[in-house]
């Protein structure tokens, strides 16, 4: 009984996070594109959701969540190019944040991890831009994008810290969360 409940809760929570992620991508589309040279490139506010998911859900659910969010957001807002940009960015940042998250209470703070995620998000998009433009000169935008990534990563980190504060209060999640964040 309790096991079923915990499965159910995980799925419901995945669904909630997924819908929040989609909303965030829609909101993000309303901003003017920060990188004029790469249509479809975005800031990466959805990293907030990825961050939350990484801290709450098992990793395979995080992958599922990211995939679902990408597909649904692409269906709702952008086209295929948006999907590829977003997918490269999201998965790259997902995996790197997963790698660095275990270091969190001791060596890093959550903001550091989300900065890493933000930069990787931009870097993934840039890689797609390199493939599409067939020119490695696009990589020269990397310093600019890194600065953007650090800024957006800081915002994402702050927001997810605040959010975790509230999510932590939800009774059923207590105990699952990585303490000390």
């Amino acid at each position, binding site marked *: 009984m309790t096991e079923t409940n915990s499965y159910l809760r995980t799925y419901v929570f995945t669904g909630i996070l997924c819908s929040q992620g989609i909303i965030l991508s829609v909101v993000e589309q309303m901003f003017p594109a920060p990188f004029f040279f790469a249509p479809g490139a975005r800031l990466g506010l959805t990293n907030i959701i990825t961050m939350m998911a990484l801290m709450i859900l098992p990793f395979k659910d995080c992958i599922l969540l990211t995939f679902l969010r990408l597909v649904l957001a692409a269906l709702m807002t952008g086209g295929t190019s948006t999907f590829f940009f977003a997918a490269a960015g999201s998965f790259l940042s997902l995996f790197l944040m997963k790698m660095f998250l275990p270091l969190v209470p001791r*060596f890093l703070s959550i903001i*550091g991890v989300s900065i890493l995620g933000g930069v990787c998000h931009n870097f993934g998009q840039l890689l797609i831009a390199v493939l599409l433009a067939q020119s*490695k000169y696009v990589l020269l935008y*990397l310093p600019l994008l890194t600065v953007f990534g*650090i800024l957006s990563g800081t915002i994402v980190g702050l927001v997810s810290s605040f959010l975790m504060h509230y999510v932590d209060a939800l009774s059923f999640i207590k105990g699952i969360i990585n303490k000390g964040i």
Partner: protein
Amino acid sequence: MEILKRLKPGDFLIVVILLIISFTPFFMVHNSKKEGNQVIAIVKVNNRQVKKLSLDHDQKWQYQRDGKINIVQVKNHKIRAIDANCKDQVCVKEGWKSKSGDTIVCLPHKFLVELKNENQIDDDK
């Protein structure tokens, strides 16, 4: 603000490392630009182009006409006139050349080796 106090030294380290990494493409592109602007040697006799030599592979090439012999050698992306049967031997004494814009001249034979960037040659067309 409470959160800012939780920042760890590792956070700043990450920022610094990321910033450093973000500048690596500059070096890559810089190097590849050099590769793209390969220098090639153009041999002209009497102001007519007779041969293009790539500096990529080592070789010796001999030009002979009316008993006038010039031999050029390419080695390690450099080129020199290794031998000529002219009187002054100025071209042989010039030694190795590798930069775009360099020339090796053998006046008695009206033999000229010009080093040019590949891109420049494209522009000339």
